[in-house]
C-alpha cells in the first residue's frame, strides 16, 4: 500500500490557510449551531405568534426571553427512556449519527475570508455527500424505535430527502458551472470586490461593462447569471424538504403519525434531534447565502466616489475584513431562516403525492433547463 500524504489542494490564486484558522473555525461553528437553536426556537415561537396574532412565550423572563433555557432545564431533568422492544444500540446511537452528519457539513463552510474549516477541492460535493448521510441516522432512529409511527415517519423522511436531493444537486451544479470551482471559499471570493478575475454586468462579457470595481450586489451570483435567481428559489424549496421543514414536514405529521421518527425519544436525545434540525436549517441557509447571495461580501456597491463596498468590507486578512465578512454572511443566513419560518407558518402541509409531483415533475425539469442555461451562460462569461 502506498500512502501519499495529502497536501492542501488549493489553487494558488486563493488563500493559504494557517493551521490555527482551521482549528478555530470548527469550535466557532459548533458554538454557532448549538447557540442558534436557542435563538432559533425563540424566533420561531415569536414569529409564529406574530403571524397567528398571539403573543407567544411571555412568562419566563422579559418578553419570554428565558423560555428556552427553562425548556432546556426541563429536557435535562427528563429520564432517558429506551423502549423495551427497541433495538437498544441503534436507538441510542441514531441521534448522534444524525447530528454528526449535519455538523460535518460545516467543515467546508467559509465564515469569513480567512476562516474555513477545510479548503478541500471537493467542498460542495463533500457537503452534498455528508448531508445525505443523515438519512441513515433517521432510518436507524425510525427502525430502532420498533414503533410503527417511527418507522413510517422515517420512511417518509428518507423518501423525501433522497428525492429532493436531485433538484438540490442540479441547482448547486448550476452555480458550480458558473464559478468553475467546488471550493466554497473560492466561490465566495468570486462574488465581491476581492475577486481575482473581472466580473461583467450580468456576467456577459460582450456587454463590456466591467463591474469588478463596483462590487456589491452586482458581483453576486444571482446577478452574474440572472437565471440563478430562479435556481435559488428551487434550491430554497429543496432545502426546506431536506431539513424536513413545513410545508414538507410530512415525516412528523402530528395528525397522522404522532411525531414521526422521533416519537420514542425523550430528554437529551430528543434535544439532540431538535438541535440537528436547527443545525440543518442553519447549514442550508449558509449554503444558499454562499452559493447565490454573495457569501461574506457586502450587498452595497461602489458608486463613483461613494465607496460603499470598500467601506463596508475590509480586505481579507485584516480583523475588520473578518468582522464585516462574518456580519454579512450571518445576516444573509438569518434572513433566509426568517423566510423559512415565514413559509412554515403560512403554508399548509403537502400531501405525499403532491410532494413527489412537485419534486419530480416541477423542480427537476426546471433544474435541468437551468443547468443547460448556466452552461451556455458560462460560455458568454469567458
Amino acid at each position: 500500500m502506498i500512502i501519499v500524504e495529502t497536501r492542501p489542494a488549493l489553487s494558488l490564486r486563493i488563500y493559504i490557510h494557517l493551521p490555527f484558522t482551521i482549528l478555530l473555525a470548527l469550535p466557532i461553528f459548533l458554538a454557532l449551531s448549538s447557540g442558534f437553536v436557542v435563538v432559533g426556537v425563540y424566533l420561531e415561537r415569536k414569529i409564529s405568534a406574530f403571524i397567528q396574532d398571539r403573543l407567544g412565550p411571555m412568562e419566563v423572563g422579559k418578553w419570554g426571553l428565558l423560555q428556552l433555557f427553562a425548556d432546556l432545564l426541563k429536557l435535562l431533568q427528563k429520564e432517558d427512556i429506551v423502549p423495551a422492544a427497541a433495538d437498544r444500540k441503534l436507538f441510542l446511537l441514531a441521534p448522534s449519527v444524525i447530528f454528526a452528519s449535519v455538523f460535518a457539513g460545516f467543515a467546508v463552510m467559509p465564515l469569513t475570508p480567512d476562516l474555513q474549516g477545510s479548503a478541500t477541492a471537493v467542498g460542495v460535493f463533500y457537503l452534498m455527500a455528508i448531508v445525505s448521510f443523515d438519512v441513515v441516522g433517521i432510518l436507524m432512529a425510525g427502525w430502532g424505535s420498533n414503533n410503527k409511527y417511527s418507522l413510517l415517519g422515517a420512511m417518509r423522511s428518507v423518501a423525501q430527502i433522497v428525492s429532493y436531493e436531485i433538484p438540490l444537486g442540479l441547482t448547486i451544479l448550476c452555480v458550480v458551472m458558473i464559478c468553475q470551482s467546488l471550493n466554497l471559499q473560492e466561490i465566495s471570493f468570486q462574488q465581491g470586490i476581492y475577486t481575482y478575475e473581472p466580473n461583467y454586468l450580468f456576467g456577459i462579457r460582450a456587454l463590456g461593462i466591467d463591474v469588478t470595481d463596483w462590487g456589491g450586489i452586482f458581483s453576486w451570483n444571482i446577478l452574474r447569471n440572472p437565471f440563478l435567481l430562479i435556481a435559488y428559489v428551487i434550491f430554497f424549496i429543496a432545502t426546506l424538504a431536506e431539513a424536513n421543514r413545513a410545508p414538507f414536514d410530512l415525516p412528523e405529521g402530528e395528525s397522522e403519525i404522532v411525531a414521526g421518527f422521533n416519537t420514542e425519544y425523550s430528554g437529551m436525545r430528543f434535544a439532540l434531534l431538535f438541535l440537528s434540525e436547527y443545525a440543518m436549517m442553519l447549514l442550508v441557509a449558509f449554503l444558499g447565502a454562499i452559493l447565490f447571495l454573495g457569501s461574506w461580501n457586502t450587498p452595497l456597491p461602489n458608486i463613483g466616489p461613494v465607496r460603499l463596498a470598500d467601506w463596508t468590507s475590509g480586505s481579507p486578512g485584516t480583523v475588520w475584513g473578518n468582522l464585516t465578512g462574518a456580519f454579512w454572511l450571518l445576516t444573509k443566513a438569518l434572513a433566509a431562516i426568517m423566510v423559512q419560518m415565514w413559509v412554515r407558518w403560512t403554508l399548509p402541509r403537502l400531501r405525499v403525492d403532491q410532494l413527489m409531483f412537485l419534486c419530480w415533475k416541477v423542480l427537476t425539469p426546471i433544474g435541468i433547463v437551468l443547468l443547460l442555461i448556466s452552461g451556455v451562460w458560462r460560455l458568454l462569461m469567458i
Partner: protein
Amino acid sequence: MKPIEIVFYVLTGITLLSAITVVTARNPIHSVLALIATFFCLSGHYILMNAQFLAAVNIIVYAGAIMVLFLFTIMFLNLRREDEESKTNLTKMAAVVVGGILMVTMLLVFRAVQLPAVNEGNFDARTGLVEQLGIMLYSDYLLPFELASVLLLVAMVGAVMLGKREAGDRHF
C-alpha cells in the same frame, strides 16, 4: 511512526472490524449498517491517498444511495429469526466456494501486478482531484465514459417504463 501511518492503521483496523461485523451479524439491519461503516472507512482510505473526489463519490453513491435502498428493502421485508432456516448447508458451501475463488483470484492478481513506484520529485499533488479526473475522462477515457453514460441512459429509460402509469391505473 509518522502520524499519517497511525491514522492509516487505525482506519484499517476499523475497516476490518466493520467488514467482519457485516458477515457475522445475526440481524440483517446491523449487517447493512456495518457495511455502510465499511464504505465510510474506505472513503477515509481514499482521502489518505488524496483521491478526494472518489471519496465523496463513494459516500454519496454507496453509503448514501445504494445502502439506503438496501435498508429500505430489508425494513419492508421485515426479516425475522425464523427466516434463518433458508440458510441451508448447501448455500453456505456455495458461499464458501465463491468467496474462496474470489480471494484466490485477487491474491493472484496482486502477486502478478507490479505497482509503479511514486517519484516524489515530480508527483503532482492534484492527481485525483476533480479537475484532473475530468481532463482524463474527457480525453484518454472518452469512449468508455460515453459508453457508461449510454448504459445509464438505458437504465433510466427502463426505470421510466417500469414506473409509467398504464391506461386504467388509479392516480396513485
